[in-house]
């Protein structure tokens, strides 16, 4: 049952991500990415991390993607324009061939490097990690990182407001 769920969620995640980069309508890309995030949340539940799964849905699929959606609707993002004529035969149209080759190389390299890890069986953590454990880890051991991210969010808020402001000319 777990194996079936893993393959199902994994297939949905990969298929949705391929469609995100593969098809032209930006609105559909945003929706497909939300589907991919949902599949990843399912994978987190399989990994005994329900808190991370719910946080993924709340933060990523529920907030960040709404931001993307609003920007796509606001700018009325058109379908992609065809690429300008290529620079050279090696690069292909605007470097597409080289780019595709590099990504393929990266994929193969990562899969080959990870295919021989020493760990084969999961450790025997019988209990689902409780939210209290995560909370104590964040607020006690990683307290500095937590405070730093709060400053980061403040900077990002101010930056976003300033950057997207209309210029008064």
């Amino acid at each position, binding site marked *: 049952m777990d194996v079936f769920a893993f393959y199902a969620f994994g297939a949905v995640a990969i298929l949705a991500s391929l469609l995100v980069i593969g098809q032209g309508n930006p*609105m*559909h890309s945003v*929706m497909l990415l*939300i589907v991919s995030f949902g599949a990843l949340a399912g994978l987190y539940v399989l990994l005994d991390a*329900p*808190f991370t799964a*719910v*946080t993924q*849905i*709340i933060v990523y*699929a*529920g*907030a960040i993607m*709404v931001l993307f*959606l*609003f920007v796509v*609707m606001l700018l009325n993002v058109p379908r992609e324009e065809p690429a300008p004529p290529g620079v050279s035969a090696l690069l292909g149209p605007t470097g597409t061939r080289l780019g595709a080759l590099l990504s393929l190389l990266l994929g193969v390299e990562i899969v080959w490097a990870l295919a021989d890890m020493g760990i084969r069986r999961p450790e025997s953590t019988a209990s*689902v990690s*409780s*939210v209290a454990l995560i909370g104590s880890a964040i607020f006690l051991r990683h307290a500095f990182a937590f405070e730093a991210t709060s400053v980061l969010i403040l900077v990002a808020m101010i930056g976003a407001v300033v950057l997207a402001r209309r210029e008064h000319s």
Partner: protein
Amino acid sequence: MSWLPSPEIIAQLGLIVVVFNMLVLSAAFMVWMERKVCAYIQDRSGPNRVGFEGVLQPFADVIKLLFKEQLKPKAADTILFAIAPLVSTTAAFAAFSVVPFGTETTLFGLLDRPIPLEITDVNVAVLVIFAITSMGIYGIVLAGWSSNSKYSLLGGLRSSAQMISYELSYGLAMAAVIMMAGSLSLREIVMNQSGYWLGFIPRWYIWLQPLGFFIYLTAGVAETNRAPFDFPEAEQELVAGYHTEYSSMSFAMFFLAEYVNMVTVSAVATSLYLGGWLGPFLPDWLSWIWFLVKVFLILFFYVWMRWTLPRYRYDQLMEFGWKFLLPIAVLNLFVTAAIVLWVG
């Protein structure tokens, strides 16, 4: 009878069927109650032709909607136009899956072990409800965008901006209750409210968190786009907002989603603040009756508010959400945290 699955699985599936049907029936009941209460507030008598006092009116409405023609604007984005009502409805129903509505029961001894009366209980139940409610926003945004019409787009954007703004206060009010109960599971939060002070005052969290209850209900009303926060679908301003271009069953699904969202907000409010299914005089296996009574009270309050209060203008609505409700919710959280630290 070894080909049947075990009694536990049958009971679990039975629970799912019961909850799903109860939600659909409660939406139908809400249609009737809304029209009746609205009528009596406006000093008339409401639907009284179809069935006794009009109780079959919702079914007549459904039959009428089923026979209407399903239209789609020519320039609409087909896939998104079709899935928008599905997203809304699915999110509305799925959010109820972690709400408990009764104690553990063995169903009159048919089961070996008692099962709790809910679909499932995860240890992060409150966050699950929050997450699924966030997903419900997409139904409205997609409906507004894919209809490719001015009124829909404006209504959809306004509605989703409103929902996002009030989600913060919603979450902060829930966080205060979680701090007091020490757990994210709704069943444990309800069990923490059992017992009485002085023998007759139940230990509900509404006495300890009156401000939190007010914040939660206000944010819940705004989340479900109901009056007085229903500017995005106000008939006088925006034709019908994000569901202008929808007809027949798609429109019915948006309506269904709205009513089921109301039921979910009420159910979570009773679990968090009013002690869930706990109540005197009834035996354990009938405790869900208390749950229904409390949910019904909050739903009545919802309908009463709609037909009594005037509607907020959109900028007033957003100002109220960000400049008034959010600071109060944060203040409530601070005070609750201070008291929990001081007492505990």
